[in-house]
């Protein structure tokens, strides 16, 4: 290969590697990175950085503000550990009791303030099969 081209290729690669390394250590946006953590270790330790947690929405724990329907709080459960989460944006349609969710935000004084709330997407629609007790044909018009 032409030595000029070879040097250029090496140059491009070095610049890109440096660039990826730089952004990986100094992201411009504070929302660029979040540390995955379990609910249990968050409850037992103090973390000041941006965090990401996964778990199940505890049955009956969703509270929606009467005055501002966008504001809601719920309990995130992972195993036996529980965490209060506050979220004040449009909620995804699949968000409900028992839904599997991922929240991203910050932990302040016992409350997790999430600014991102993701529910598992439609391709995970794999619930238990229905028995007659919870599903009757005549109750659903077509």
């Amino acid at each position, binding site marked *: 290969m*032409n030595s*000029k*081209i070879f040097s*250029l*290729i090496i140059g*491009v*690669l070095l610049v*890109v590697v440096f*660039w*990826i390394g730089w*952004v*990986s250590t100094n*992201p*411009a*946006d504070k*929302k*660029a*990175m*979040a*540390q*995955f*953590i379990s609910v249990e270790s968050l409850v037992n330790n103090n973390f000041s950085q941006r965090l*990401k947690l*996964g778990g199940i929405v505890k049955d009956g724990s969703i509270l*929606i503000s*009467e005055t*501002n*329907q*966008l504001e809601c709080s719920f309990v995130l459960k992972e195993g036996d550990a529980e965490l209060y989460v506050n979220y004040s*944006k*449009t*909620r995804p*349609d*699949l968000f*409900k*009791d028992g839904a599997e969710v*991922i929240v*991203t935000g910050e932990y302040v004084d016992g409350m997790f303030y999430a600014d*991102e709330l*993701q*529910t*598992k*997407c*439609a*391709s*995970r*629609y*794999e619930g238990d*099969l*229905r*028995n*007659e007790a*919870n*599903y*009757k*044909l005549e*109750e*659903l*018009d*077509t």
Partner: protein
Amino acid sequence: MNPLAGAVALNLAFGCSILSIIALIAYNRTSDFRLFLVGQRLGLAISFFVFISTFVLGHQLMISNFDIDYVARYTSFETPTVYKISALWAGQSGSLLFWLFILSIFNTITIIQNQSKHHNLMPWVIITLSTIQLFFLVLTNFITNPFEPTQADFEIVNGNGLNPLLQNITMAIHPPTLYLGYVGFSVPFAFAFAALVNKDIGALWIQSIRRWTLVAWLFLSVGIILGGWWAYQELGWGGYWAWDPVENASFMPWLTATAFLHSIIVQEKKDMLRVWNMVLIILTFSLCIFGTFLTRSGVMSSVHSFTESSLGPVFLSFVFIILVSSFGLMYSRIGVLRSPRRIESVSSRESGFLFNNLIFVVMCFAVFWGTLFPVITEAVNGNKISVGPPFFNQINIPIGLALLALTGIGPLLAWRGTSNKRLIQNFAFPTILGLLSSMFFIFLKMSVYVVISFSLCIFVVAAILSEFVKGAKVRKRKFNESLFKAIYKMIEKNRSRYGGYIVHLGIVLMFVGFTGHAFDKEKEFGIKVGDTKSVANYDFTLIKMYEEERPNHYAWITDIRVTDMFGNFVTQLRPEKRVYFHKNPDINKRQPHSELDIYSTLNKDIYSIFSSVSSDNLTAFVKIMVNPLVKWVWIGGYILAFGTVIALWPRKE
């Protein structure tokens, strides 16, 4: 049709795949042509049995046979027919069978198409394709069988039904389109592998797979765009790309496949980059399988992931086997693979292709790095750090802009080298236009990236147009044709080249749409009937809010009047909040769904989401987004597909 027939057909396909591989390996050792014919016919038999199996499952879905677990989980009596068909790829085992089904179609076409061609390559092509089929047959026979009977201690009177979010025609088309892309790369990979085994490394295997690669690339591109379009129209977060691991999983093979499509031109024309082409096709196919691993393993927290299953390690092992066997074989053939010719000049088209390839691969690495960042950081320091869209955008925007620049530069360079005089001639018009436009955008006080992106878009469009004009002028002079006829004839005579330029034009328009993201505005608020709220110089007045009970859902509907800053009427938006299965006594089985309303123009989209309604039914909580230039992403997508079809269109004999 008895469901047992489907399970038996899967078993028979499994047996045939093993026998086909054995027969063809024996043929390679003995050169007994009868063994080749046996292997080839068994290869066709695998596909035949897979077709039967798929049709049986399709039939069971149609007749709602809830004795099959898969049917009970993904359909119900009420599921419309079209979605009973799309339920075939809605769940894990069904989608794996569907993968196999598409692979079997491709396998059959490859065998029939090459019955009297490529005699030395075909045995190994069939072995490779049968091995891939065997892998999926192992999965569907022994790990996640779609014909598994329902196991419940009660009678299943009706199935679960398909999620309403998936009951959308785009969502019915998006997965099979992506699969056609993913699976399509099996064929070029099989030819590459066969070429390596036979040490038949010249341009022959490249010629035999160019069209296949383009078809697979088209489906992958359309599948990705459809996924983005569906997310934008249905999911209600106002975007079309979130750098989710599963989205990245489809984007990575697209990047390497695009690089491959460019670099095979260099091998065809100049017999260079042989090693590089092998690397690219191996990477592309491995990334397709790796993408399926990411989707199914649950190793990455993705909104798309299926239930965690034992499939992850199996897929990862398969990727490992592909990489080790292919690169091992390549290493052993490195002597014959090395091209005798070298790139002579930096200002040559070969060099342009090489740098475009480099940027594609580097971008693929950047996406790979970000996708696996949690795994990497956990391995390095024990902390699992995930990265979000700002990280991907920060890394990829400059790389993407470099790629955009090369899209314009490449076609202006001549093969072997471009003289200084021609460099000035070719670059003057696009460069001056690009620079003038950049001054205009700076004057409008746009941000640095926006100025660079828009100016490069103009530079590339000017470069493409000058190529068209140059070619048409030559024809006009030579054949005395009208300009329109000259352009038509020029495209007809050189479809792959000008089809490619049209694809580039589509990409430029998509970049215009991506750049519009920099101007997005959004606001979430509660609003009572008669109130007005402002977002991005538009006023939104809630005219009325009402409820309706419809056949399969209950809906709250808002009627929002949109006026511009001068009070002129713009549009009426009617986003809805729906609850499907609203009569179901089990509240958890009811399914809320936000039906968006989007006012879309070439200039901007006004995107409205009805989030919720207050308990007194007086206040609607809505999210409004004003997204400039989004429509250009979809228009660019259409043009990309159109250009690819032109490049694919067969020549008149």
